[in-house]
Every structure is written in structure tokens, then in C-alpha cells.
């Protein structure tokens, strides 16, 4: 099943297309873990059928942007230093 994601940006320019990005995204899938975050390498596209998952965007003060994207999560990035894992 396709996943729903959300990202906070200050500027839509942060969501460049056609290259790999590293973003902090949160899941909007229903269930107990809704709104939890992860850091991930992703690719985004303004063509909504480009990737299976969808990405919704919020701006600096939580305003929902009307720009929608599709997204491919390439891999998770673990920023937490190893000694705390």
C-alpha cells in the first residue's frame, strides 16, 4: 500500500526535483505511529504518479501548502550517534 508522508520546509525551493535529497519526514499513515519522524534519503516529484508514495508539505508556521508531490524513500538515515542506539 502506498504511504503518506509530510515534510516541513521554510521554502518550497528545498524540494528540488530530479536529485536525491535528505529530509526529515513524518508518516501520515493511520495508526499509533502517525506523525512520527524519520530522516531519509528521498526523491520527490511534482508529477503525482511518478512515485507510489505521496508527500504533503507544511510551511514554517504549520500552514499546509497546496503544492503536492509524490515521493520515493530511498533509505533511512540514522543521525543518532551509535553510542545511544
Amino acid at each position, binding site marked *: 500500500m502506498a504511504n503518506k508522508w509530510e515534510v*516541513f520546509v*521554510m521554502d518550497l525551493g528545498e524540494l528540488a526535483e530530479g536529485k536525491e535529497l535528505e529530509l*526529515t519526514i*513524518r508518516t501520515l499513515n493511520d*495508526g*499509533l*505511529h*502517525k*506523525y*512520527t*519522524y*524519520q530522516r531519509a534519503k528521498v526523491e520527490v516529484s511534482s508529477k503525482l504518479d511518478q512515485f507510489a508514495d505521496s508527500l504533503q508539505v*507544511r510551511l*514554517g*508556521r*504549520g*500552514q*499546509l501548502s497546496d503544492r503536492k508531490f509524490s515521493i520515493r524513500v530511498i533509505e533511512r538515515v540514522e*543521525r*543518532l*550517534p551509535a553510542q*545511544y542506539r
Partner: protein
Amino acid sequence: MAKISAPKNNREFIDACVASGDAVRIKQEVDWDNEAGAIVRRVCELGEAAPFMENIKDYPGFSYFGAPLSTYRRMAIALGMDPASTLPQIGAEYLKRTNSEPIAPVIVDRRDAPCKENILLGDDVDLCKLPVPLVHDGDGGRYVGTWHGVITKHPVRGDVNWGMYRQMMWDGRTMSGAVFPFSDLGKTLTDYYLPRGEGCPFATAIGLSPLAAMAACAPSPIPEPELTGMLAGEAVRLVKCETNDLEVPADAEIIIEGMILPDYKVEEGPFGEYTGYRTSPRDFRVTFRVDAITYRNNATMTISNMGVPQDEGQLLRSFSLGLELEKLLKSQGIPVTGVYMHPRSTHHMMIVGVKPTYAGIAMQIAQLAFGSKLGPWFHMVMVVDDQTDIFNWDEVYHAFCTRCNPERGIHVFKNTTGTALYPHATPHERKYSIGSKVLFDCLWPVDWDKTNDVPTVVSFKNVYPKDIQEKVVNNWADYGFRGAKK
């Protein structure tokens, strides 16, 4: 002192509020995703009874108690007073109790600690097992801590701090929060843990007794466990944590134990704030790694929903900031008649009444107020004389608009401490907690001739002889007046 009989824990408090009509039980299912937050917000804006939501979607067995102290009635109930007590009465009681002898906490056995009824350790630790609400749509995350205490200890001085510092769930094991550098915890981190690169043990307690919560957000110099004891008139019961050496209130509903990491930060915010806005930007903030969760059976999570007036942030912080300033000014021998903050100023304006017995008294008050531990939390001080009723905004506003000289009565203080939450500050100032302040001096200058230079207040009570006033008042109905329509 007469025996105080205040609710000892969150459950007794809910019962007392339900009994007096100051809380409602909501039996129907409420969604943790926005709905509970929307209920609490509307309750705050309408001044309604506190919602006790007993059936939460996805989280059987848990409940929410929202807007616990957003009215003076509930504040009076929390203190064990008559719910109909007036604000000056509640204030006088707070001053009496917090000027009494500190009452040290007692340590109880874990078998007598309800917060140990359920214990999650190791791989079982997951904050998503708690009904962490999405308080406002568009918030940066679900907030675990909105009405709670973050418990820490200074490793050298040994003093314990319970502070209400918001905490967002980043993932099931991680929270991040806005711990300001001038707060007690902020100072412990910058003074000790951060320079050494050591983790700081913490415990978050949710569903505290209302007086413990009051202490956790009061800007008092007294350590909060003792302060809670003084407010309650008896010792608080503490119990040892599972994974560190801290002690937590045994009757709290939920405890989250862990470590503040010195070298790792995750994003926090934006969040709906007490100013009535979302102001502070999303940023990398103090990060809490969770090692254990313990909770009572049928645990109740407390929720404050900050936004436009009035919520408990505004009500309680206005109350305690004002009274703590009154104590400070009196300790310096300044003849103040009282200090008051209107909750709807979102605790930004101190109104101080004083007998203007010497020159520069308003400036001295402002310097003490802005220079104290309380100072970062407000940016306006308005000083009025002892004839002005500080609780009556009509009188204060009249004094301000007529006596505050635009050239000599307004004093701006630059380069002071601010907070990331000030809506009027620039983005740069918010990031570095840079502030500015203003004093509105509404006193008649002492070097004006009292008889010939100081204007006379033209009011019924001030210009007519007592006998005429009495005659008019006594004859009022006979003249044909039936009471003005408001």
C-alpha cells in the same frame, strides 16, 4: 495555620471539579488526532468546564483531562479553597502559603507508588503506546508534555528542578523541547552537562497533582518539590525512578525516564503558544532520549492547549509571575500596593501599584522586574499609584492614557533577555533570545506641587463631600434610577 485540604493528586482533583460542575465527563469516543485538542481549545475560549475524556480512539484504558487550570474557579479548587473565591483572595492565599516554611518531600516504597503499576523497559519502550495528542492541526508533532513537569537534578549542587518545558514526540524513543537558556534546566545544561558532553538524566511526570503542576510552572526560587509541599500543606510523596537516580511524584499518572543528549538534536515545533500565535520557528532543540515509561492503570494524560486567551498558561503564569514580583519588590522595601497581570496580556504586562514616596520609584521597580529571574517572560511594566485599582483595567487604562508622558514616562530598555516566542521580535532576536522592554511610568512626578500642579481626579467618589455622596446614594432609587443597563 488552618489545615489545608487540597486535592492530593490528579484523580482527586478531577473528582472535585466534576462535583462542583467545573469538569464534564465525556463518554463518547474522542480522537487523539486533532479532536481532543479542538475540544480543549474551545473550552479555553469559552471559559467552559474542563473536559475529562474517558474514551480515546486507539487507546483503550487511557483518558485525557484538558484545560485543568484555565479558570480561577479550578485554581481555587486546586488550592482547596471555595471555588467562588475572588482573585485577590486566591492571590493572598498563594502568598501566605509560599511565604511559610518549606515542606520537604518524603520517599515512599515503590509498592506504594501507583505510577509503577505498568512498566515499559527496553524494546517495549514506545511513546506511541501513550495517547500522545496532536494538540493543534499543523503542529510540528504530537506533544507529550503540555501540562507536566520535567524533573532533573543539578549534579553538583544537588538541587532538584521540576519545570514545565514543552516536549514533542519525534519518534517512539525521542522527544525534543524548548528549554530556554535562562530557565533552571537550561542553566543546568549550559553550566554542567553540555561543556562536559555528558547526558543529563531526566524524568517527565504527566498527570501531576494540580499543585505540583502549579509549582512546575511558577517562577519561584524555591525548589518545586518543597514549593508543592508548601502549597499543599503537606509533603509530596516521591519514588525512585527505574533507570536513573531521580525521584518522581508517586501519584503521577505517567512517568517517562531517560537522558537529555548533549551532542544530538532533532527538530521541534512549530507549536501553538501561549501568546496566541505560532511564533517560535521549527528548530533543532534540546533532545530527550527515552529509556523507560511507567504509568498507572487507567492513566489520565493532562492536556493544556495554548492559544488565544485564556488557557492555564496565561492564567496561572500571570498569577504566579505577578505574585512572585510582588514578593521580590516587598523584599526590597518598596511600598507596593499590589502587582497584577491580566491573563489576556498573555503575561506580557506587569501592572504595579505603588505609593509614590520618592523620585525614580517606577524606574527602580522596572529595573528589579526586568533584571530578575522573572524578567524574560514579560516586556512591559506599567506603574500606577496606590489610588488606582490595579485589578480594574478601566482605571489602569485611564491612568496610562492620561498620566504617562510620551517623552518622560516611557523608558525603553534595549539588549535584554527575550524568548523565541515573542511575536513582536525579529526572527534573529527570537533565535538568540534577545529582547527589549518598556516601562510606562504613570505616576505624577514627585517634584510637581501636590496642590497646584497635580490634576484632581474628577469622579463621584473623589470630588463630592461624603455627606452629599451618601445622600445621593441613599436616594438613588427614589430619584427614579433602576440601575444602568450594561
